[in-house]
């Protein structure tokens, strides 16, 4: 039911959006999120349940790196 990979919103018509799951197009209900074309959303049972924060996604790896580097110094 839950797809771990985010989908990109291609177009919006009212509360319905067409999204792209890496090449596969699907229709999803947008009523639970504030999203715009170009956003990446997490989709569950036909509904977008959250919008992915692209900046945070890029920050995550950086944070991981810093944490590991810090441990290496401490060790």
């Amino acid at each position: 039911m839950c797809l771990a990979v985010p989908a990109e919103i291609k177009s919006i018509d009212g509360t319905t959006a067409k999204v792209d799951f890496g090449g596969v197009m699907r229709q999803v209900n947008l009523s639970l999120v504030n999203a715009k074309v170009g956003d990446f959303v997490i989709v569950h049972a036909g509904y977008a349940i959250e919008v992915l924060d692209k900046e945070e996604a890029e920050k995550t790896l950086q944070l991981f790196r810093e944490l590991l580097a810090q441990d290496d110094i401490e060790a």
Partner: protein
Amino acid sequence: MFRLRDREMSRQIMGELEKMRLDITLMHVCGTHQDTLIRFGLDSEFQRIGVDIRQGPGCPVCVTPPQEIEMTMALAKAGITIAAFGDLMKVPGESQSLNEIKAEGGDIRIVFGVDDAVDLARHSQKEVVFVGIGFETTAPTTASALLSNPPENFSVLSCHRTVPPALKAIASMGEIKLHGMIQPGHVSTVIGTAPYEFLSREHRIPQVVAGFEPLDLMMAVYLLAKQQSEGRAEVQNEYSRVVRPDGNPSALRAMRDAFSPTDSVWRGFPVIPSSGLSVRKELEKHDAAKRFVDIVAPIQDKEYEEPEGCRCGEMLRGIITSDECPLFGTKCTPQNPIGPCMVSREGSCHISHRYRRAKKGSV
């Protein structure tokens, strides 16, 4: 960009974990986490370095008790159109499964979400009951449909459940000593991180909300191991690219407006207080439990035996793994499942079985 599959970093994390000489047991409650763990062989990698990870009650179809399966079948037998997720079809009831009732002429449709069920009702003269199964990821979708003025002939048999009360039950039952919990990324997108805090505060359990890439899980284990070794117990959010601390307010509002918390039976557990969601009184004309009370109510309090020999209950409480069930892969397979953990694609036995076969096949 979002795949988070950095080989060098994976090696580094596993190396750091190995240096820590761990001997810990962790639990997660999500079929998608279990899929990542087994598919990438991470479970055995972790075991090798002293980290045992169990799937708890994190498969919605698996925790659905026999009563709700029987109610669904009784509604179908009464000529009502049932709209259900595909995973439910093969779950063995006392004498039949939904699949068998469908084969006998029952009008049972597989849907991908509640909106399909609403559409079905719109184009039908018959009563349509959507079987609402799932945690806080699915419950808001059912709520949203209930609140969007659905057709008169549409109702919901709410089998929705919420995760934090089940975590509380696991921690209080004390059957398994947990050194940390990996919390489900997508349930957390809806509820945020605050609802987990009591576990760290009251039960001293370190927690990390995690995403679904291998690196997410490695990082979660690493953060938990660090909390453990430093004597900390808190909720950390590794999945901040999707999970905000206070969750998704629209989804939470929809859930609150459509449902009220109720005590609920989970397969393998005693009644868990406030862990179920029943349709609010204001929406009761769309509540299948009220609309078809004559069919549903007599089943509510009946006792049902678990399938003979099936150890799903212990699986769902994290006490055993699939391999420890003597029926796994012999008498119980996805083609002939004995318990729901082998039926649902999110069930631990099904996941182990599908990748065990894949691994064997590749040798």
